[in-house]
């Protein structure tokens, strides 16, 4: 299984979306743009890493900040500034790029 990177997002294949987390993760769909799932939103640019074809489900942690992607059919990950990446069927963890700070680690905001 291959991993992918689109800007500040790393898509890492995983064997399974954690069993024990199943109940805590809820599929989200259609945020802001109809039929789109948004993996990450740039706060300053408004640009987003998004899937529009409905072939994937984003599993969002209810109690944690981890995100998982369940790709049901080959799907396209799109972004305004980065080339589109085709993700094959599979299960992935979506990892947002982070930066270190003595006060705490935080996500990169583009």
């Amino acid at each position: 299984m291959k991993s992918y990177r689109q800007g500040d997002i790393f898509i890492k294949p995983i064997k399974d979306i954690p069993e024990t987390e199943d109940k805590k993760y809820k599929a989200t769909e259609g945020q802001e743009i109809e039929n789109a799932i948004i993996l990450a939103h740039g706060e300053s640019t408004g640009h987003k890493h998004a899937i529009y074809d409905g072939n994937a489900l984003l599993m969002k942690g209810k109690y944690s900040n981890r995100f998982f992607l369940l790709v049901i059919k080959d799907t396209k990950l799109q972004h305004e500034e980065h080339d589109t990446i085709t993700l094959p069927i599979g299960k992935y963890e979506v990892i947002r790029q982070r930066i270190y700070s003595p006060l705490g680690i935080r996500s990169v905001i583009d």
Partner: protein
Amino acid sequence: MINILSEEQKEKFIEYREKWINIGLSIEPANRKIAERAINELYILADIEKPKKIVWCGSPFSQELVRTIILDKNRLHSVSASVSASVMASVRSSVWDSVNSSVWASVWASVSASVREAVRSSVRDSVNSSVRDSVRDSVNSSVWDSVRDSVMDSVSASVWEDVREGVNSYVWSSVRASVGDSVSASVRKAVRSSVRDSVSASVRSSVRDSVRDSVSASVWEDVREGVNSYVWSSVRASVGDSVWDSVWDSASESAYGQHDADWLAFYEYFREVVGLKKQTEKLVGLIDLAKSAGGASPHKNICLVSERHCVLNRDEHGRLHSIEDAACMYPDGWAIYAIHGVRIPEYVVKFPEKITIELIEIEENSEIKRVMIDQYDRDFIGRYLQDSGAKLIDVDIDQYGRPLELYIKYLKNDEAIVMVKVQNSSLEPDGSRKNYFLRVPPHINKAKEAVAWTFEETIQTYKPAIET
């Protein structure tokens, strides 16, 4: 004797938590009518004669200055320089620079005409900034500390004489009958020995004992668990440490008001939900005061009371925080500047362009230094690293042949800043690629390891098949 809390009573935990968080964080103008009534009630309940005069101040800071001017009579008649010194001495050095003309105006508006007249000749000079500066220059730090300590002690004592009376009479009237000698002794000791402690701490421990006495041990545990975790601790977390400490540490050491939200929530719950009216009767004045004003300093014959904050900005952890303006401000203009709870000089927030490498280097406080570096980098992360002569410790290329550079900047009394310089994968309109810096933990010494770390990976596992 109450032996158990009903489900309905437990459900009220959240309501009381929310209600008192809102009280503690309120930025509404004080309700002066209710507050003055509450102050009178407070005196009556503490068996102290009602104050002859209630003086409103624009901020806790002004309140502290007024308190010093009014109460420190001896110094009012001394020469102007020392009066200025004593007035200023009541204020911690950290807030010195916060004194601006509007605060002084508010102080003077709060002081009655007769007092003003009496002190005018000697204190007048302290109103203008050049005198403030000269006083500051002429009073060196050792003199300053001794003056400050002596002034604070005398003022504190006069406050405590009044307040302790109220606390004691309340505690004793409600506790004596049923609390054992050892508990009584420990409460007494706690009150006596904690002149410098905050009022809330001693009132809280005393009143808690009296409430405890009204319920059985098992229910007490239940209540403590429930109320503490749902109401007390969360209100404290939201209001207490962050706001209370910043505001009152800066200016005032003994006042009651909205920032007592944590423990007043606790007792109002018992009062209204559990029905312990009698046991909490003495707190009614304080509860109403907290709901209607910033905070009051009760003294014999006179009570000083402050407006509430009118601006309050906090981060997601509830700490005072604003990177653009004051994190906390009062109606008279007195303000606290803070980033993620770190109190900083005004210019760091309002005029970050004035921050220089030299100013960062000489800053002794590492927390403030971190904030200054962040502000220096506000438009371009890595600017401080570049301008301060950071050392290049690793050069590499990524899988597409793009350069990677790792830099380290050692700081005095703080961990080193390590940043990796990378190139954007997408092209700019002119065909170039933008560079940017990412800070990584200080132990990292390879550029590739640094990039992998930013995605929670290692050099071995970070191998994207496609990168766009």
